[in-house]
């Protein structure tokens, strides 16, 4: 259902005020961190703030924000703990984890190796000697674990998307998404949705507090420890990965430390590991010898290293600049970086003062900042739903598939550097696809929709079909004749292809199904509530509601002509064909280059 309908009177007032009076006064605002005056607070600026610090809003909500003072708005936005959010539900786990599945082995080969050694693995016993495919139950269980985790992670992504859509604390979710990209961790390597969920909750709980708490939290976070292989970082064989990413990506950035600093930091974090879901420190594996790090010498441990890193002015600048790029724009001047960095460091790395300063600054509302940011795929989809007034994320088409096809999977960033963002979201192909996806939302293909949480790969599905036809496992899993296939295991101890099929089937049985529903869109009611009784007014309402930049007159005319052509008249009255015509029009609006900008 459409969540909030727009009162006609209010909308008339908004139309009159749109985009007027901005261009003149703000031309010298770029780079000016002083706060915006209440007199300069407009509907467009309120919309800009809600777009960047959250996921956009419906026009009536924006009008409400525009009627408050900028300081009150920013305080409410940033001090979000004061906003009641109890209506949001916790993640509803399927309960896929069986005793013995911990710790989950890194590969099928490793699962089998353990089984050969101990007679069991993943909580499953090897079949008696002499039985054919003795290790099959272990291999089946391994693939079950992979698939069950993958499905739970899909459900987790949908759960989070629904939070983003319905939260009354949009900045909390926007920051959680920021930290997920900054401290990027992917389920495809962690292979444990429980760790991903806990990490997500940690990000949310510490999203706007002191940066140190967040940093310590992530360095002790099981998902991150697994993702960066820190279990392998031990006194005798230090693994540099953790130390390197800490310095390069998490705190300081390239160019402010040496290779030696990387190695010394890695030594300080030896012994930091996890026992499945709990952080552990193993003193026997820790190197407590003397280290020289960033010019200081001592028997540093991990916490000491964090302390030294936070003493570096460059760390505060690095984090402040990254937050600025996420919320404001790509290029930040050196002086602004230093200025924001100083505020941040001198304020004990507390994030709220920094965020308030950014959101209130004239720079935030200056032309180079306004409607110049390319929406991330997750932001694009969630904010569209929010602007449509939906109260639930549609599941036809599938949310996770939509964003991943545009280059962003929740709980699956491409690598530890996170999403590069900005123009890298856009290629000719993804740009077309950004529009196409909304056509699928507006004209959902319910009949031929295949739910990804219940769809096997073609190879696995073929195995299932052949087994159902009565073939034995060997016949059912024979496949092609390419060279690499010849090398695929024909190991008599187990059959990998069968394991893949069986693991899938078991996971389908034991994970909760994602309920499949198309979007509850009612554009007829939307335009009626907006008082848009003509083709022109409908086009203007859609532009106003969905676009952050004004459309050129000739492009607006294309939309008007299109709708007039569909309806055969200028008048917009309820009729059989109205809803479809409005949806086609909205598809065009959402496919414009302008719509990619927030």
């Amino acid at each position: 259902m459409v969540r909030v309908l727009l009162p006609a009177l209010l909308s008339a007032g908004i139309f009159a005020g749109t985009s007027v009076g901005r261009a003149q006064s703000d031309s010298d605002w770029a780079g000016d961190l002083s706060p915006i005056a209440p007199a300069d607070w407009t509907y467009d600026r309120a919309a800009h703030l809600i777009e960047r610090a959250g996921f956009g809003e419906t026009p009536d909500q924006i009008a409400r924000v525009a009627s408050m003072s900028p300081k009150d708005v920013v305080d409410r936005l940033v001090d979000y703990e004061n906003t009641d959010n109890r209506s949001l539900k916790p993640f509803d786990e399927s309960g896929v984890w069986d005793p013995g599945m911990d710790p989950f082995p890194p590969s099928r080969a490793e699962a089998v190796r353990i089984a050969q050694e101990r007679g069991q693995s993943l909580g499953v016993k090897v079949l008696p000697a002499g039985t054919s495919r003795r290790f099959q139950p272990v291999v089946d269980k391994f693939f079950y674990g992979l698939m069950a985790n993958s499905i739970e992670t899909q459900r987790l992504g949908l759960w989070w998307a629904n939070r983003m859509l319905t939260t009354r604390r949009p900045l909390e979710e926007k920051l959680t998404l920021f930290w997920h990209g900054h401290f990027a961790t992917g389920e495809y390597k962690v292979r444990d949705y429980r760790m991903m969920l806990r990490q997500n909750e940690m990000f949310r709980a510490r999203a706007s507090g002191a940066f140190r708490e967040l940093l310590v939290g992530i360095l002790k976070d099981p998902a991150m420890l697994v993702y960066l292989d820190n279990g392998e970082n031990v006194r005798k064989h230090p693994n540099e990965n953790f130390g390197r990413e800490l310095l390069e990506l998490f705190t300081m950035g390239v160019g402010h430390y040496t290779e030696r600093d990387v190695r010394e930091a890695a030594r300080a974090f030896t012994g930091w590991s996890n026992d499945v879901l709990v952080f552990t420190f193993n003193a026997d594996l820790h190197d407590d010898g003397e280290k020289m790090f960033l010019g200081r010498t001592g028997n540093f441990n991990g916490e000491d290293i964090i302390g030294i890193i936070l003493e570096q002015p460059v760390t505060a600048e690095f984090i402040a600049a990254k937050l600025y790029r996420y919320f404001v724009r790509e290029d930040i001047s050196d002086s602004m970086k230093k200025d924001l960095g100083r505020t941040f460091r001198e304020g004990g790395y507390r994030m709220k003062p920094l965020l308030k300063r950014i959101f209130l600054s004239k720079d935030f509302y200056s032309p180079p900042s306004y409607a110049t940011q390319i929406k991330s795929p997750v932001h694009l989809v969630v904010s569209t739903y929010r602007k449509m007034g939906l109260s639930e994320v549609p599941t036809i088409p599938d949310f996770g598939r939509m964003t991943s096809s545009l280059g962003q999977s929740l709980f699956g960033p491409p690598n530890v550097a996170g999403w590069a963002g900005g123009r890298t979201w856009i290629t000719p192909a993804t740009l077309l696809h950004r529009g196409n996806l909304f056509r699928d939302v507006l004209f959902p293909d319910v009949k031929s929709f295949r739910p990804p949480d219940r769809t096997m790969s073609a190879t696995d599905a073929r195995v299932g079909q052949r087994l159902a036809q009565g073939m034995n496992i060997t016949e059912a899993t024979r496949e092609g004749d390419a060279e690499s296939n010849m090398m695929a295991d024909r190991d008599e101890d187990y059959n990998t292809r069968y394991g893949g099929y069986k693991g899938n089937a078991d996971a389908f049985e034991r994970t909760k199904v994602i309920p499949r529903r198309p979007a509850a869109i009612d554009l007829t009611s939307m335009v009626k509530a907006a008082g848009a009784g003509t083709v022109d007014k409908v086009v203007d309402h859609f532009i106003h509601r969905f676009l952050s930049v004004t459309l050129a007159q000739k492009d607006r005319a294309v939309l008007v002509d299109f709708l007039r052509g569909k309806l055969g008249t200028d008048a917009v009255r309820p009729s059989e064909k109205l809803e479809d015509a409005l949806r086609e029009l909205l598809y065009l609006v959402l496919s414009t280059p302008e719509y990619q900008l927030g």
Partner: protein
Amino acid sequence: MASRCSCSRREFLVRGLYGIGVGAGLPLVLNRTSAALAAQALEGTSLERHPERILVVVELSGGNDGLNTIVPLADPAYYRARPNLGIPESQAIKFADGFGFHPSMVGFERLYKDGLMSVVHGCGYDHPSLSHFSSMGFWHTGVPNGGESLGWLGRLADSGFNPATRNTIVNIGSSQSLAVRSHDHSPLVFDDPARFRREGTDAEKQALVELSRARETKNATLEFLASTAQNATESSDFVRQASATYRTPVDYGIGGSLGGNLQRVAALIAAGMPTRLYYVSYAGNAFDTHVQQADLHSRLLMYTADAVRGFMEDIKRLGRADEVAVMMFTEFGRRVEENGSLGTDHGTATPMFIFGTGIKGGLYSQHPSLTDLDDGNMKMTTDFRRVYATVIKEWLGYEDTQAVLKGRFETLGVFV
């Protein structure tokens, strides 16, 4: 798609590009290109001595373990450093004195025997970075430790190719590589050709052609979006049809994404795409084998070798073998010594590979020492930009490599 003539690309260009009848998208893609290319082909300008020649760059992301790819069989230091992961001499595919391919690289063995493959030992750069992101960035820009914002292929296109020629660069991938970032050219980037299309009714699509025109505005991001939208509209039909109608009996192997991506390149070459620079990658940091490396690396190498061998065979089948060269790289090799988790950590020097009929197959440069190390890592023997210079000058015929690479780099004499 109509079957193409077996004539060379040069003759083909001169005869006129509109004749091949691939579909309605063609004239748009080749917009303003056919005349320019044909003229260059006739005149043989210094800028464009070989307008038929194509370079395909293949990236192996994650840092491929060069020592287990081109195995230094005769070096006891290799086996000392890798008691568990070392490839025994008996298993390696010996192809030259002292060197063997990893046993899964049957595809490379074939190419090498046929004289279609060159190996350049020990490639790297001074003051190597062990960070994926930094090092890959250095290989992409061709300016290590320099903070260059354009890619080396992008700069090559800027210097050597007419920006009026659309789609000089094609990058198959889900996002654009820094290597192809150009000032004047707009690389065509796509992943799955079948989905490279605008959905909707004819009326919707027509309206969207109007709404997707390039434009001038004060908003630079909007300008970028609009010009990308226009190129997408104009190129997607051609690319999709070329790929959908492409049929080949050649087997590119079954694993990984590289085979499919190279087949997409073959389809575009077959369809007469005016592209000179193709960029494909084995993406997703696949080669970052820190833990339990042996099985994983074996699969990766097999997929890679199968895919390249398939591509070379397919290009030959198309009668275009003499017009295509392939260069393969990774952002760094791995540490000489294996780590404690049956894997290898980030290293430095790494071999590069060049494939094609136009080369003198064999080994180039010196293999780095495995005992004279720099903090556990090999010292590079060949600046990787020498290999870039080699393909730019010796293959594509562009003389001023210094302008593109921002420094003087001797070519290696790999091409005939």
